[in-house]
């Protein structure tokens, strides 16, 4: 398995280089280094000399991909792409255009993002699987029928509606929790209650239906019939045997997103005033801060690859027949 993991991680290198190249190309198709300089220097009293100085100091005065003024390897190494990309592979994200350390910023903002994303993920997973199993348990009864109706209704509503509606009802009308805000330590709870509840509810419809489908498929298999024939209680069949055998499709969708939980949620964090990473990339795109954009895209793609590897490993844990070679 170790060889497999090492091989997968080595495959990640060309993927990350490719992602970096695409990010670089897309960014500089829209924004030139001159635009970046103007964005930073402001709209008033900006002269070409000031723009040149800004670019020179930050290394944006070089050609983007190929430097025809240089010879040999320097043609490719003395470029913005090479100089800005290389350091990221040792996790040196450098500084944002406003001079602040990107790694420090990511570390600081990761915690609030996780504070919402982790409870939503764990509670959500438990709730969706439980509800799905209950619906399967009560399949073909009014509980199952109404469960599906409610799931479809929940799926049909935009997550933004849940947030605004939740803030209006629970925060504004009933005054039960703060409408928005964040604090560390013990005060964190009152701020996270509403976003976590809304986070769980807003995804409940789609996820519960998805898990219900998986479990229903398992219910038709022979081992379930055998278990029933042996006289096992239905609840035991569901919560022990069916759940365990349905883990492969569940893990496929779940494990891959675990590392991405660090990156937070744009809308939720924005409405609830959570100082997380959710808006970091979009703010950087708006302010044309390439240093942040490339760092965040690199981190996102890297975490996704880690998620995929973890998914593969998790298969071996739930199904002993699977071997990673």
């Amino acid at each position, binding site marked *: 398995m170790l060889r497999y993991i090492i091989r997968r991680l080595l495959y990640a290198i060309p993927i990350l280089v490719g992602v970096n190249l695409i990010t670089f190309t897309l960014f500089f198709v829209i924004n030139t280094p001159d635009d970046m300089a103007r964005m930073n220097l402001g709209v008033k009293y900006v002269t070409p000399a000031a723009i040149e*100085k800004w670019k020179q100091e930050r290394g944006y005065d070089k050609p983007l991909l190929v430097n025809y003024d240089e010879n040999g390897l320097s043609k490719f190494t003395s470029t913005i792409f090479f100089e800005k990309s290389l350091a990221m592979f040792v996790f040196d994200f450098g500084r944002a255009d406003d001079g602040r350390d990107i790694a420090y910023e990511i570390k600081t903002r990761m915690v609030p993002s996780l504070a919402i994303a982790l409870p939503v993920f764990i509670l959500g997973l438990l709730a969706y699987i439980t509800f799905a199993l209950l619906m399967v348990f009560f399949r073909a009864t009014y509980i199952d029928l109404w469960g599906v109706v409610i799931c479809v209704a929940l799926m049909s509503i935009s997550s933004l509606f849940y947030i605004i509606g939740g803030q*209006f009802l629970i925060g*504004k009308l009933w005054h039960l929790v703060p*409408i*928005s*805000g964040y604090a560390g330590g013990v005060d964190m709870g009152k701020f996270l209650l509403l976003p976590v509840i809304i986070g769980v509810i807003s995804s409940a419809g789609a996820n519960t239906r998805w898990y219900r489908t998986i479990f229903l498929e398992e219910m038709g298999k022979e081992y379930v019939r055998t278990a029933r024939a042996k006289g096992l209680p239905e609840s035991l069949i569901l919560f022990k045997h069916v759940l365990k055998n349905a883990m492969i499709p569940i893990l496929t969708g779940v494990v891959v997103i675990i590392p991405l939980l660090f990156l937070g949620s744009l809308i939720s964090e924005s409405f609830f005033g959570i100082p997380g990473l959710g808006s970091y990339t979009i703010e950087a795109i708006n302010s044309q801060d390439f240093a942040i954009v490339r760092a965040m895209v690199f981190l996102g793609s890297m975490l996704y690859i880690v998620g995929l590897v973890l998914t593969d490993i998790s298969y071996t844990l739930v199904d002993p027949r699977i071997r990673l070679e």
Partner: protein
Amino acid sequence: MLVKNDIYARIILLCAIVLMSACGDESWNNPYQAADADKNILYNAFVERPKHLDPAQSYSSNEIQLTAQIYEPPLQYHYLKQPYVLVPLTASRMPAVSYFNKDGYRLSDNARVADIAYTVYEISIKPGIYFQPHPAFAVDEQDEFLFHNLSDKETTKIYQLSDFPHMSTRELTAKDYVFQIKRLAHPKLHSPIFELMADYIQGLREFATTLEKVVDEKPEDNFYLDLNKFPLDGVQVVDDYTYHVKIKGKYPQFIFWLTMPFFAPIPWEAERFYSQQKLIEKNITLDWFPVGTGAYMLTENNPNQIMVLDRNPNFHGESYPTEGMPGDVINGLLDDAGKPLPFIEKIIYSRERESIPRWNKFLQGYYDASGIGSDSFDQAVQLIGQGEATVTDTMLAQGIRLEAAIAPSTYYMGFNMLDPVVGGISERARESAKKLRQAISIAVDYEEFISIFANGRGVPAHGPISPGVPGHREGEAGINPVVYDWKDGRAQRKSIESARTLLAEAGYPDGIDSSTGAPLVLYFDVTARSSEDKSMLDWMRKQFQKLNIQLVVRSTDYNRFQDKIRKGNAQIFEWGWNADYPDPENFLFLLYGPQRKVGNNGENAANYDNEEYNQLFEQMKNMRNNAERQQIIDRMIDILRHDAPWLWGYHPRIYGLYHSWYKNVKPNRMAHNTVKYHKIDAALRQQRRQEWNKPVLWPLVLVLIVATLGLIPAFMAYRRRERGVALGLSRHDS
């Protein structure tokens, strides 16, 4: 069964205890610490995170609300007086201005501008002003700085300034002001006003070149550039409390710059302290942690969440103004006349990116003031007459009041004068284009625009100068006669017929080019718009359709838009300007020929160039505000109105809502260091918060009941299923 009932009873009891325990005085939805409830704290929100707090770099309106409370330039605007009046802040008196000829002889105050080689501003500051407590000033028993050469070990547990075990201060001197002026030329700071100031402050450009050379020779990151070692000809320390600034020629507007944080003092110790690489790696920089002498100091800087300003314990003291405008006494704005400032102990700015939670928290009393978004405008404001507004009854019931002020800004639609259609190439074409522009000026109804798209929050512009700025005229004398007639005591837009007549005279009768027979098509360059702006663009098309002109909207991203403007490739465009200071020069230079965007990289986006206007501008810019200057301005504006390089658009009116406990608020769009004058009645706020935010518990009970009622049949069905037998077996048995 008894045992189970016992469990249910216990659960219900536990829920009841939890609910009852929450029925205390504290509101459940209070986003702040309960211990701060009755403290003298101002709570406000911010949307955009500040990028720079270094006074040499910061130039955004969202940053100045912080920096203006911390840094103290020598001058400030009088808080209550209108029009804007300059008064000393740290200066002991207003600067003494002396003019000199090229031989160094002093000239009289009325000397001809051509004779003035340079101007010297002598600025004297008050003694006894001290910087806020800061580790940069801390010294040991041998007077050696404690934290100027930090080792790796010493910085291990340092994450913010409060982690330093020692703080100290020192007296403010003239050297600190001179040091900051030198910082404007620092090659690593990229001060946004460097290029402008280099044209005026003697030797600043050469000083920057010297510094660049030094930096180029020492490329390492942790190199400390000691500005004290390099003299700057244009700035001299006279004594501990006096310094001179030497300006090339005459630039009377320089005095307004002395109210901005660009000219606030920076102690060299701070620059030295913050230059340490170990601190930079931890984002502990002057750009993040300011060092000032102002009424407040930044004690928490988390721009994603919260910015906290605490009262500066070393603040030199200042008194609330004793004079104001006639209405100020009635409005209670002079109740605190002469009392020591500041009134508020702490300011907490919370980041609130979305308008809905921001607005709702204001209504709950958790923010002391709020702007008004378009989505909450009808809920907050009702219009009661011509441009007059008041709060709605709901707001009034909460004790919320409205304060409005016209911003020293202008939003306009510009014509590119280099464009052959709207600008004209030949003399004849220029005359034709002028009539075309005049016709469009009449057709585009900005009164309607303000009413529909700005909720009435604006004043139609008759020229570039905003109300409240010298040079602006009110009433009949101030109307634009090309677009308006004065009827029944007010300006009335000319009829569309007169616009059509002008259009025909321009060679486009009924919107058809008489020379080619083709319909007239004009191009409106805008930055990429959201779907919300579509109605605005549709409205604009309809305005042009009144003249049968087809308006094609060319939407692009902001970078490409700026590029088009720089290269003169746009035809019609929208732009705006926020004045830096209340002088007509700061508006009229936007149409000064040498300030053209194309070729000169100036601020004249329309590329307007009128010889007479240019000459009058050069004459006017160096004059004092008197009748003669007004006469010149009148002539300049008359030229502009007839040439119509802009549709003059409108001057925005800024509305602010304030709770009843927030006092001494008078909008002053030029002064930003105003929090020191404000006052909070914390007891009243706490009382109102408690009244407005009592938790409503019945929904919780309802949810519990519904959940229980839903679970019972499910539980019964579960039991039935688990105890039941297979259907086939059951039939067989029966």
